[in-house]
């Protein structure tokens, strides 16, 4: 079976997770070798996931930790149930 681009797109997630079965992995790799569009789709997806997962993208509200531990402090005066 020869994969077209749309088939490859269906497998991008598993490709990134390293969970494609060896036969499909081989076919996807072969397609990627000659398809600049799918290669760019894969590279951009991987790159965007790295950027969104970076802690700088979503930061904790200023003072979050202090407020949390202040609130906990009152509860910690009593032992847990």
């Amino acid at each position: 079976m020869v994969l077209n681009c749309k088939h490859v797109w269906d497998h991008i997630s598993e490709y990134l997770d390293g969970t494609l079965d060896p036969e499909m992995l081989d076919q996807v790799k072969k397609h990627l070798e000659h398809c600049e569009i799918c290669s760019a789709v894969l590279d951009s997806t991987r790159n965007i996931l790295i950027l969104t997962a970076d802690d700088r993208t979503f930061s904790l509200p200023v003072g979050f930790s202090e407020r949390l531990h202040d609130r906990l402090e009152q509860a910690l005066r009593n032992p847990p149930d």
Partner: protein
Amino acid sequence: MLIEGNNERSMVGNGDESDVIAAILAGETQLFHELIRPYERSVYMVALSMLKDSADAEDVAQESFLKAYCGLAKFRAESKFSTWLISIAINEARSRLRKQKTSRTESLDVTSEDGAPVSPAALTDWREIPSEILERQEVRLLLQEAVTELPTIYREVFVLRDMEELSVNESAAVLGISVASVKVRLHRARIMLQKRLAPQLNKIVAPKKRRFPWF
């Protein structure tokens, strides 16, 4: 996934954690501060992914840690402490959402995962965007909006898997959905983000680069 984010992870191993939990239950309650410190961000992010509002998410995060403290004796070491905390946060967030639904009209963004296939933005080449670009607020905002505006069922899975690095099985367990659903939703979330963000980021990084929007 075969990528690494810039995430700080727990310095306390599972073995140490169970010792700390035992000590807290034996009366050294102050140790709870240190026990939860590595997970503050995860619990907040999970709450934020479900509630979309930072003040609500902070409140739910605080409530979750309080619940975790009160119910610490119920924690069983066969699950990871982090996963247990995240389950509590998901339950708290869901309960908050139910309360909100009774007081205002909820926008329905539940999307069937059997819907039409999602296609990525087809580019002909991609120049790697370094993470230094996150110093720019406009880039952070683009990314935040794209994640926040994912339909809820996709956003929940995306945050657990790709941002908080839970396994497929752990994500399925804490959300109460099948492993197959986690995989489908995660795939769709990732493609939706690529479709939206790749053209936007390309414009920011290389404004004059020629692109083919579709083929």
